[in-house]
């Protein structure tokens, strides 16, 4: 009996499950790239998902970006004032927002809002067998549900990052203008003096990666949800946790690569 249970798993139950999931994820990714570049293309559904992912997140992202700009400026001022370097605030804020805060904060918000939404939506469709029904009705559910959502999150995230960056800089300008009476021209000159094209491109690249990660995590968790309504909640929760974890890992790796290029 004991011998039989040992033969059931290659290493252990947890390790076997992990590697099994990893293989499934790569299969899922392979299928995504295959379906993305083969016709027919679901343009309308992709636009629809862009609306849900991008436009519907806009208000939340705008508010968050604006508040981050103000708060980060207020928190940084005392340290710089100690050295008499308050005039460096625009440079500091622009570096912080463009290089790190805008892509990271936007993607974390999107992971919470969009990722959980995708996970829960697809999960509920899976457990209520709507996806199976689509297959029966000669509709490719993967192309219609997964490809459109992953594409939408990947494409919309850079645009949301640009919005966040803009709002963050606006918030920082308002705070700096109130305290240091810095003009808009001086603020822009100072802010752009320290950032480079590489910073902009790397931020947009990060946003693409994070958007893709959120889409894949949400779609995979939803598409493979099991055990009824409990599985739906689990899928939504797992999407947020996994997406955020992967975003931080990616952030660390991309920063290393960008610094090596810089």
């Amino acid at each position: 009996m004991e011998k039989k249970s040992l033969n059931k798993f290659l290493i252990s139950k947890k390790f076997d499950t992990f590697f099994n999931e990893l293989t499934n994820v790569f299969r899922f990714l392979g299928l995504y790239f295959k379906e993305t570049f083969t016709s027919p293309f679901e343009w309308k559904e992709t636009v629809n998902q862009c609306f849900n992912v991008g436009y519907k997140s806009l208000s939340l992202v705008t508010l968050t970006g604006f508040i981050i700009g103000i708060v980060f400026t207020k928190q940084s001022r005392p340290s710089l004032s100690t050295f008499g370097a308050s005039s460096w605030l625009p440079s500091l804020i622009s570096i912080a927002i463009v290089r790190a805060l805008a892509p990271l904060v936007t993607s974390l918000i999107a992971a919470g809002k969009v990722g959980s939404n995708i996970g829960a939506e697809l999960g509920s469709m899976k457990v209520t067998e709507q996806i199976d029904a689509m297959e029966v009705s000669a509709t490719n559910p993967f192309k219609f549900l997964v490809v459109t959502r992953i594409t939408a999150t990947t494409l919309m995230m850079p645009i949301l990052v640009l919005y966040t960056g803009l709002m963050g800089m606006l918030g920082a300008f308002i705070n700096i203008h109130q305290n240091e009476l810095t003009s808009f021209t001086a603020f822009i000159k100072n802010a752009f003096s320290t950032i480079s094209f590489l910073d902009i491109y790397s931020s947009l690249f990060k946003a693409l990666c994070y958007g893709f990660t959120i889409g894949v995590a949400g779609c995979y968790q939803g598409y493979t949800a099991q055990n009824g309504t409990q599985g739906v909640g689990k899928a939504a929760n797992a999407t947020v946790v996994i997406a955020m974890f992967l975003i931080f890992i990616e952030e660390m790796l991309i920063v290393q690569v960008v610094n090596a290029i810089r």
Partner: protein
Amino acid sequence: MKNKRTVIVGIFIFIGLIIFAITILTLGGQKKTFVKSFPIHAIFNDVNGLLDGGNVWFSGVKVGTVKKIAFHGDSDVEVTMNIDLNAESHIHKDAKAKIGSDGLIGNKIVIIYGGTLASPQVKKNDFLAVENGLSTDDMMATLQANNKNLMEITTDFKNISRKIDSGKGILATLLNDPALSSKIQVSATDLQATLANLKTVSESSKEVLGNLQAFSGKMNTKGNSINDLATDTLMYQKIKLTINQLNVASGSLNKLTENLQMASEKFNQKNNTVGLLLNDASTAKSMEATLKNLESGSKKLDQDLEALQHNIFFRGFFKKKK
């Protein structure tokens, strides 16, 4: 409804692209990416951590960026800079380049300075002369040396103050001894009186100086005898000649005086005729008798000569003579 969503997504993407475009253009404008430029070079011993893309300043204005940093020769570093075409007319071939920093702890930059209008404008691929300025490390080394000196000075002061506090040395006595203090007070009073006297002396000196000034003014007035004496070189020669002649005359006079003295000494002796005449009484009586005889002899000779004129033999001779 679906068409409306498409429009909203389109607007959303469009605005995002506009933000992206504005960001790129602003950054490009700031980094002078879209401005026409030309390369110039400078070779430094040490670039102090200058990086590609660092700013190039001329008269405090950003005129370009560092394009490339590469080793040149053994250990020198060649810095290639992209200079805006607009700045070409302001930078001359004899301008110099040095490594500076944007603020005290800011990024390293290249500073172009100097240049004269006499020199032609800088052209593509020209090499600028460089000045190797002081690095932060050099300044820190100097500061460190200053700190050491300051430390030694403060230690010396500390020792001095300790000695004073413990009552050693003149300064301590000066500060603590009341008798010395009263003596110094008396000395100060004396010094005050001396100073009052000095003041009077100085006032008198002032007056004397005024007189001297007036005198020297007269000396400088032309036509004045003193001025002539001071300025006329011919008169000086004459005076010199006169002094020489006077010198010779005084020599002769000296000799004459000596002769006279010798003569007068001889007059007092009886071994010569004049001395005998002056000093011997018998000779004087004899001389007196002789003179009386001569007087009577001369009277008698007059009578004889008159008688001779009337003589028959000589009368004719005297008539012819008349």
